[in-house]
């Protein structure tokens, strides 16, 4: 039996050779892929598969729109199926990328004029790094909640007064405690736009705190990872 695979069945699918794996912590690493012609908007995500495998997962893009590489931030899941396999990839391994997908992100005109607070837990910082790389002049603050201070992925890239690390399991953060505890102490300008990304419990709690501070729900934008 013969099957015809018309070219568009491959729509949005690209195969990439892994260029580099950056190990950021024992559990977290980034995959650097050649950007080639892959066009995306900062904040979008892709679906990643290993060539020859039968599964894929969604990851926010960690690099900026104009960066040399397409980079993804990945945390290995204990006893997971997919991420341990990703971690074993080497430079030269082939992966499959579908996308880009999603509307979470930044409009260029808004980036030029708005005031933003990016609130992330763990690897939820990925879309915000992409936005900051893409719009280096953007008026932003990042509030990043992690367990340990070693999880402050690439914090040296952000100006000191724009990045606040909240650590819940060690004393190495700018704030020692949960992100939401820090958020309660913050004051923000009324016109601030908030972008939240990470686990749903953090997002729900942060949303209530911000609403409690009088911000309109329409000023708060959310991307749930799990």
């Amino acid at each position, binding site marked *: *039996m013969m099957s015809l695979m018309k070219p568009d069945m491959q729509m949005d699918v690209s195969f990439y050779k892994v260029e580099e794996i950056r190990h950021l912590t024992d559990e977290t690493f980034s995959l650097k892929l050649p950007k080639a012609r892959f066009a995306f908007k900062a904040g979008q995500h892709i679906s990643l598969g290993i060539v020859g495998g039968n599964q894929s997962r969604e990851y926010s893009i960690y690099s900026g729109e104009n960066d040399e590489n397409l980079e993804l931030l990945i945390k290995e899941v204990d006893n997971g199926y997919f991420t341990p396999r990703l971690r074993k990839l080497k430079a030269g391994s082939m992966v499959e990328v579908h996308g880009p*997908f999603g509307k979470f992100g930044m409009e260029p005109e808004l980036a030029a004029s708005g005031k933003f607070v990016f609130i992330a837990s763990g690897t939820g910082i990925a879309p915000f790094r992409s936005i900051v790389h893409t719009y280096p002049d953007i008026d932003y603050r990042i509030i990043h909640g992690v367990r340990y201070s070693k999880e402050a992925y690439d914090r040296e890239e952000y100006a000191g007064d724009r990045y606040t690390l909240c650590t819940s399991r060690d004393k190495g953060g700018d704030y020692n405690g949960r992100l939401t505890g820090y958020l309660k102490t913050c004051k923000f300008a009324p016109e601030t736009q908030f972008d939240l990304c990470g686990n749903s419990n953090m997002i729900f709690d942060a949303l209530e705190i911000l609403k409690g501070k009088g911000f309109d*729900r*329409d000023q708060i934008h959310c991307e749930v990872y799990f």
Partner: protein
Amino acid sequence: MKYHLITLGCQMNIADSERVSSVLEGMGYEKTDNEEDASLLGILACSVRQKPIDKVYNKIAQWNRWKNKRNLITFVSGCLLPADKDKFLKTFDLIFPMSELGQFPDMIREYGVVTPAALKSRQPIMPKNEHIAAMWHIKPKYQSTYEAFVPIQNGCDKFCTFCAVPYTRGREVSRPSSEIIDEIRHLVNQGYKSITLLGQNVNSYGLDKNGEEITFAQLLREIGEYGKTTEEEFWVYFTSPHPQDMNREVIEVIAAYDCLAKQIHLPMQSGDERVLIKMNRRHSMDKYRRIVADIRELIPQATLFTDIIVGFTGEGEAEFMNTVAAYEEFKFNMAYIAMYSPRPGAASFRWEDEVTTDDKKERLRRLSDLLKIYSHEYNELLVGKTMRLLINGTDRKTGFSTGLTEGKIIVRLDHHDDSLRGKIINVKITSAANLSLSGEIV
């Protein structure tokens, strides 16, 4: 040469199937409802739930067994997830996205099937982004003589976590407004009475064109203006809109033109803020409430339909009660209520499906009870009124027929006359039931 086509899923697939029929009949194929008579067997698949995909697997297994006895060509198109596509490549003879429907005759020609159309020159190879436009150029073979679906947009950029459609239909692409208006003019001139504009996010129309195409509100206005120029009575609906892209201007336009039906289907999915976030719906309940307030203010006679999912991951009793409260607030005329089931390909597939089936069934029952209460309450208000009714069928009860009001409420008539099918007539509402009305011809 005969073909048999199975269409699964939503109205988008029905509209697509009308174009598939048009292409095949243009090649000289004749449609048959009996698959055993056909030499070309196809399915337009749906990936929204597992059941229709299971049906595709069952069908192709059966058809491939038939191949031992006779020559057959099989094909599949429609909404397909990558994992299913890979498997179907090994079992179907032809697999193609709907955007490549224009190339379908060439694909069949590859099998050596000679038809008058096969003797014509090949379709030119087009750039990828022109395929969907070419598909829309294909004139559909409408299944009805009074009700038609007009695709105006394809694809989805919303990425609700419970849904895999963005991964099957691709990005949002809007059809040129001039084509849409032409198709509507043609339909109205042919006597069509009910025309539904279709899109996965129908009111996101034009947003993909970055200002080079009119907006959804402007498209409705153009249709409304056309409606004013014709003596024909017709109703234009649209489905499904996304609350994120709904605005007051759309409601104002619907209010301003007679031919724009006073019925709005506005999927809510959940009345709980947290569940909406987890569903990645990108609208708040405040936003939804504002839209409904605009509808009630500007089109008080409009009926309001919705979609709700019960038992989504993270929906505890408290969250469900927020949906109940929202239902009681909005008093929907109709709600399509579904129990959540994880769908391969959707983001939520890997999340724990933590609500038990019994709880989902119970929540479905509770919302269904509310649906009956509020629908009945509304229907009672219509008793004694004279309404326009589009006669669309024969009731199960002998001697009765059925129709739909402009607001899409079902009316049963103690009268049957086949010549009235597809006509809009006056009826007086005589009684109300939970989900329907009874009436008599005036």
